[in-house]
């Protein structure tokens, strides 16, 4: 038995991140680079290199000893591309050797041969049929003309006819949309609406250049392989490496490394890199390291999907949304294992917390010839918030109803409104977002920023400027102010790929030391757990430790982000400690308490009907941004950012404050392409409501871009529909507005002249 114990101890894998993968080095380490497909389509025949110096190796798909693909959530990804190419830049091989510079030189000499046999044979036929008699040129031309066209000759059986395939979709209908045909409902809702607006919104995530680019390091030790990678999905990486090498999972040691990225993904694509390096190291029996270049990072590892959201909004004169029609187009690249979850969450967020009288959402995720995408659980919804908040700001400008009033008027559903008046039978709104005190959060931010006064003043000034003078700029800087609200959810009940089986084990040992066994969270959350446990069990904080060691076959199956739901985990820690405290003086130590995510909460969300309360809790934010635009240099400057947050019970205000401030600073580097927007003042307030405590990370990313673009739109007197903005985009917007204005002026003048002429003639 004792032998068994020591064996199982040896097999423990720590899930705690240590060091950066690029810092790990071993003697005789070889450096790798990925051979990438130069074309976005075609059938690969071979990947070869004419001359390979000693010590340098090139491997492609055919060299992989085990499975040539990895499968996540039924989404199959080739480890090295073979057969049909999926996208330009798809890795089709790996080249490595002792000198990094030489490897990069050799990379340029790699030959990727595509299947052109059919094309060649067609041309050969023509050449073979050519008669030697050069004078018989006319006949030769006829022969060529008689040949079938290349389109008919080339074997297209392997060519993907349609790469643009819908991989996930979601449709939500409420109100008239649920009762009538789409076109009928549209006519009824929009034709006689007091105010309508239609626009398409795009938000793209810029990759910060300061972070460590992705990659991996691997070395072999007898029949074991050690892989160092910034993965956030260890079980999947372990399984994929074992399958690719055709070995047991027990022989695979995945060492999680730190990541310096803002929104780390570390999921399927990181696993693909880890497997590629593991294959190279396993076959060469030497340590191999791969560090992606900045270009590769930006082009192939950018985390998010590309989303275009089109809103059609109808508003009555009292400021109620009579209809909200939302069409969402999501480009997931050539693959994404989380396509359905992304589609669902963007669809939910597209309506935010607003409850229009009639709602139609159609979200479709399609594949394309772009590189595969990943997911950052923390920021899935940001593109939807950017779209809806700008749409509201736009229609607020049209209807001349203050942005805060418009938001608050539409935060309550028809059912909630009628409940207070009479008991009418109106169908429940599909989504019930557990937000806290929305009104207080919005009002505090407005008060702090003096929003309404500034908004009215900038708005009047903008209208005046647009009406009186078509010149785009004055000498004075242009000013604008924007407001955006958003939430960040914790604990999504509709997970498609994994069960939300969050688990936690707490043990109070005989020496009165407490061990919390789970994946280690951030330092701040660790501190919160320790404080809670120390209060419940009356033990010093230094006696509490968090253990992240798991046996190789007991590593949690779901990605780590599923564990980032701070509120659920906090509750579990508290419940475990309370359980221990109850037993503590009745039974001998050690006492262990185990808890998992409770199933009863999941019933609030109806997965099949796609309605109910989709999240365990949310944190709510209101962000106000005041912007100044230099009329000569097109330089944006933020005069102030006012933020109010309701994240329920606040465990560590100083840490939350630091997180918000840091996120603001990070966001300022991503709003405008190629530069950091400067900011004069930042004001942050917290409101503690009865709502369950939620996370603060990600709130700024969900709200600041929308507030910034709204402010900039007001300053420019034209609508900015995408972020990040560029000087070119601003110039184009101004030019278009001026052009439009001039055309209207001209047509008015023409009409006036015509009228005068007609009057003259009649006289």
């Amino acid at each position, binding site marked *: 038995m004792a032998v068994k114990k020591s064996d199982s101890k040896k097999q423990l894998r720590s899930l705690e991140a240590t060091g950066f993968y690029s810092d790990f080095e071993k003697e005789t380490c070889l450096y790798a680079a990925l051979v990438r497909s130069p074309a976005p389509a075609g059938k690969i025949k071979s990947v070869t290199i004419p001359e390979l110096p000693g010590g340098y190796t090139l491997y492609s798909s055919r060299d992989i000893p085990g499975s040539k693909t990895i499968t996540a959530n039924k989404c199959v990804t080739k480890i090295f591309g073979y057969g049909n190419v999926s996208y330009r830049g798809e890795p089709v091989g790996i080249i490595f050797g002792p000198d*990094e510079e030489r490897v990069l030189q050799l990379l340029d000499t790699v030959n990727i041969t595509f299947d052109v046999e059919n094309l060649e044979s067609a041309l050969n036929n023509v050449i073979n049929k050519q008669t030697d008699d050069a004078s018989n040129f006319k006949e030769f031309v006829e022969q060529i003309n008689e040949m079938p066209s290349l389109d008919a000759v080339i074997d297209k059986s392997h060519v993907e006819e349609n790469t643009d395939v819908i991989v996930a979709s979601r449709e939500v209908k409420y109100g008239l949309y649920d009762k009538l045909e789409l076109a009928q409902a549209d006519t009824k809702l929009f034709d006689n609406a007091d105010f309508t607006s239609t626009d398409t919104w795009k938000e793209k995530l810029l990759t910060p250049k300061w972070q460590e680019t992705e990659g991996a390091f691997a070395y072999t030790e007898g029949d074991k392989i050690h892989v160092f990678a910034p993965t956030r999905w260890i079980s999947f990486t372990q399984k994929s490496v074992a399958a690719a090498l055709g070995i047991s999972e027990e022989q695979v040691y995945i060492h999680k490394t730190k990541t310096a990225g803002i929104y780390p993904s570390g999921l399927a694509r990181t696993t693909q890199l880890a497997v590629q390096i593991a294959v190279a190291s396993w076959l060469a029996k030497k340590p191999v390291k791969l560090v992606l270049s900045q270009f590769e990072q930006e082009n192939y590892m950018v985390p998010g999907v590309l989303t275009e959201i089109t809103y059609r909004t109808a508003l009555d004169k009292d400021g109620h949304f009579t209809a909200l029609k939302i069409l969402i187009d999501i480009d997931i690249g050539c693959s994404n294992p989380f396509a359905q979850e992304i589609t669902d969450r963007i669809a939910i967020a597209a309506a935010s917390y607003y409850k229009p009288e009639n709602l139609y959402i159609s979200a479709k995720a399609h594949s394309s010839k772009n590189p595969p995408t990943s997911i950052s659980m923390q920021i899935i919804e940001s593109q939807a918030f950017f779209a809806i908040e700008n749409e509201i700001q736009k229609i607020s400008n049209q209807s001349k109803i203050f942005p805060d009033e418009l938001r608050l008027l539409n935060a309550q559903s028809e059912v909630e409104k009628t409940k207070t008046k009479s008991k009418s039978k109106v169908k429940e709104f599909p989504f019930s977002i557990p937000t806290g005190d929305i009104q207080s959060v919005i009002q505090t931010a407005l008060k702090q920023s003096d929003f309404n006064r500034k908004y009215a003043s900038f708005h009047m000034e903008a209208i005046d400027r647009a009406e009186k003078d078509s010149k785009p700029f004055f000498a004075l800087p242009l000013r604008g102010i924007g407001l955006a609200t958003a939430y960040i959810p914790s604990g999504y009940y509709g997970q498609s790929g994994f069960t939300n089986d969050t688990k936690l084990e707490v043990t109070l040992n005989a020496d009165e030391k407490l061990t919390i066994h789970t994946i280690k969270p951030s330092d701040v959350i660790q501190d919160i757990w320790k404080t809670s446990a120390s209060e419940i069990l009356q033990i010093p904080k230094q006696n509490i430790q968090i253990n992240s060691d798991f046996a190789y076959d007991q590593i949690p199956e779901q990605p780590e982000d599923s564990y980032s739901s701070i509120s659920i985990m906090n509750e579990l820690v508290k419940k475990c400690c309370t359980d221990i405290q109850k037993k503590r003086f009745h039974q001998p130590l050690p006492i262990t308490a185990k808890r998992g995510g409770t199933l009863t909460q999941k019933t609030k969300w109806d997965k099949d009907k796609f309605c109910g309360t989709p999240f365990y809790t949310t944190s709510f934010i209101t962000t106000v941004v005041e912007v100044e635009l230099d009329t000569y240099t097109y330089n944006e400057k933020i005069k102030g950012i006012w933020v109010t947050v309701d994240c329920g019970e606040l465990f560590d205000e100083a840490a939350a404050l630091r997180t918000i401030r840091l996120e603001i600073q990070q966001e300022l580097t991503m709003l405008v392409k190629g530069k950091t927007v400067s900011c004069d003042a930042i004001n942050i307030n917290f409101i503690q409501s009865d709502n369950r405590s939620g996370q603060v990370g990600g709130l700024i990313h969900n709200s600041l871009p929308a507030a910034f673009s709204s402010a900039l739109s007001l300053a420019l007197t034209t609508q900015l529909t995408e972020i990040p903005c560029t000087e070119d985009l601003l110039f184009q917007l101004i030019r278009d507005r001026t052009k439009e204005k001039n055309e209207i002026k001209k047509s008015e003048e023409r009409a006036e002249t015509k009228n005068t002429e007609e009057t003259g003639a009649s006289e």
Partner: protein
Amino acid sequence: MKIPVTLNGTKTILDAHADESLMKVLHKNGCISVKRGCNSGFCGSCTILLDDHPAASCKIPTGIVRNSDIVTLDYFVKTEEYSVIMAGFQKAGIKLCGYCTAGKVFSAYQILKSPKMPKREEIADYVKALSPCCTDLETLVNGILYSIQIFNKKQMRG
């Protein structure tokens, strides 16, 4: 080519191409505190002390550092100044991610050894280009100000 330098207090010969980035060469030579960030000399991840001045090693070709005195963070952690800086950072609640540490510590060191007491805005201006990967500007400035306080107190006692 062979390039003689004093690396972390020891006379060393660096074996590198003259145009190879000093960042890569130092990292290969075991100085893992020198990290690749923006590769443009702004973010600070590759900062070293070149003849006692902070410099972005990603922009320095190895050929030009012949006979220079190079100190990386791997060695600097043993100095008293480092302890002072980290004490100041800790007081401000800074928890560095480990990737940007060299840039932030060496910037603080440069300010610390300046004979003039810098204003808050001057410090902010000096460090604002550093990567905001783990620490916001205000907290970093607070950390540096605390470091200056601790440093001055120590010197007064000395």
